[in-house]
């Protein structure tokens, strides 16, 4: 093994750190991984594709509350039992029971409703020629899609959005201080989930929650508390991600208006338009894993317990895997990892793919010549990113 390979270093907690930067691109051309202040970052497509699914790495967020001084209570119990952090047989069991309800055939009946929603939201601002895209479209769309899916009255979307973002405080390093409000919000969300479950048990329908209530694999079913935890995770894991990804999508096409025109003329390219955004501009810019055992992979030695970040945007624009990495909605592309990979591959990806495809199709058929129209605001370009505010002006098509 050559010892003279220079391994780049990236300080990923530096507030100035950005995925879309010369430093990160240079690191990727220098070597397939970088050292970081947390552990390692995998930069190249080929290696992300292989290692992301490696069983010697586990999801790794399970210890988050403990790392932040929270060792018990409502949030702790929810977090340590939710799908995202479960491993092995516990994860397989829950995932198997949830998976079928999220398959294309069960999502399809909801698509006309998603389309009506997208049309309603954009028609409301079409004559004005300007709007704040996140507030007026991406957030209500992402939240109401989940309400539709779960059968929560759509008029309650602002409450759901507020609860989910309050619980989102738990992702911050101030978890311990915020614990009170986080737990209140989780309790309130539990209330919604418990009502939904009780209602579908009494009045089964043809909807997703009924399918989860009735989910049965070889006699095994989800208990009421497993159902409740899962519904809360769907709300939490499906909303901000979709809102942010829609925001990043708009930004991508603001910079690629020729591709937008191509999409408007060829609505059947909308699905590819979503994939290209997620490849080049994913909201989840890294996926986190933790080594379960010591292991070596080529020249990389990983000790058990080390954090490994998989850089999705960086690997998705790796020139070795994508010789012309710019957005091209007509190109055949290798799959990206914006939905993670392996056992924890996003449960809701068929929903997210379908609802974003509809959104881009509807928007591209109504808007042209979009431009930034005021001050935009952004989450940092690392971790889970996206616009917080994106005022745009456009011409009605």
């Amino acid at each position, binding site marked *: 093994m050559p010892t003279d390979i220079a391994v780049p270093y990236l300080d990923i907690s530096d507030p100035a750190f950005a995925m879309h930067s010369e430093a990160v691109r240079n690191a990727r051309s220098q070597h397939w991984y970088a050292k970081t202040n947390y552990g390692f970052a995998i930069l190249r497509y080929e290696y992300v*594709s*292989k290692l992301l*699914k*490696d*069983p010697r790495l586990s999801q790794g967020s399970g210890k988050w509350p403990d790392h932040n001084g929270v060792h018990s209570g409502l949030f702790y119990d929810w977090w340590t039992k939710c799908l995202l952090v479960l491993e092995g047989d516990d994860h*397989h069991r829950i*995932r*198997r029971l949830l*998976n*079928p309800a*999220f*398959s*294309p*055939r069960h999502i399809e009946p909801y698509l006309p409703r998603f389309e009506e929603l997208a049309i309603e939201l954009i028609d409301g601002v079409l004559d004005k020629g300007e709007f704040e895209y996140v507030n007026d479209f991406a957030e209500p769309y992402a939240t109401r899609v989940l309400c539709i899916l779960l059968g929560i009255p759509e008029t309650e979307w602002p409450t759901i959005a507020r609860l989910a973002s309050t619980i989102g405080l738990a992702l911050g390093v101030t978890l311990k201080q915020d614990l009170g409000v986080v737990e209140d919000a989780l309790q309130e969300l539990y209330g919604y989930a418990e009502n939904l479950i009780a209602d579908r048990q009494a009045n089964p329908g043809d909807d997703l929650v009924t399918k989860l209530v009735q989910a049965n694999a070889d006699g095994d079913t989800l208990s009421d508390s497993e159902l409740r935890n899962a519904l809360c995770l769907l709300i939490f894991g499906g909303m901000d991600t979709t809102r942010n990804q829609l925001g990043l999508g708009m930004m991508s096409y603001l910079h690629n208006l020729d591709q937008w025109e191509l999409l408007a003329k060829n609505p059947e390219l909308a699905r590819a338009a979503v994939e290209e955004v997620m490849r080049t501009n994913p909201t989840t810019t890294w996926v986190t894993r933790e080594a379960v055992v010591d292991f070596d992979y080529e020249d990389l030695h990983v000790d058990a317990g080390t954090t490994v970040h998989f850089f999705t945007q960086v690997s998705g624009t790796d020139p070795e895997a994508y010789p012309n990495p710019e957005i091209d909605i007509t190109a055949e592309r290798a*799959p990206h990892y914006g*939905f993670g*990979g*392996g*056992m924890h*591959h996003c449960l809701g*990806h068929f929903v997210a793919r379908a609802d974003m495809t509809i959104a881009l199709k509807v928007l591209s058929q109504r808007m042209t010549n979009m431009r930034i129209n005021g001050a935009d605001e952004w989450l940092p370009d690392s971790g889970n990113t996206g616009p917080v505010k994106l005022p745009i002006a456009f011409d009605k098509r």
Partner: protein
Amino acid sequence: MQVYVDRAKCDNHGQCTFSAPTIFRLDEQGVLQYEEHADESLRNDVEEAADVCPLQAIFIKD
């Protein structure tokens, strides 16, 4: 029942192994291995695997 996985599509996520573990498994290298013949009694499980595969790479013949 005949099972076919399109290798050009399959990305070895292993979601199929939850639905029909006797037909689909990941080997030590993390690569999908599967049985090309499945007993009729496993039809529901194999159909479920095909339904949930993120890449929609699984096909069932007859």
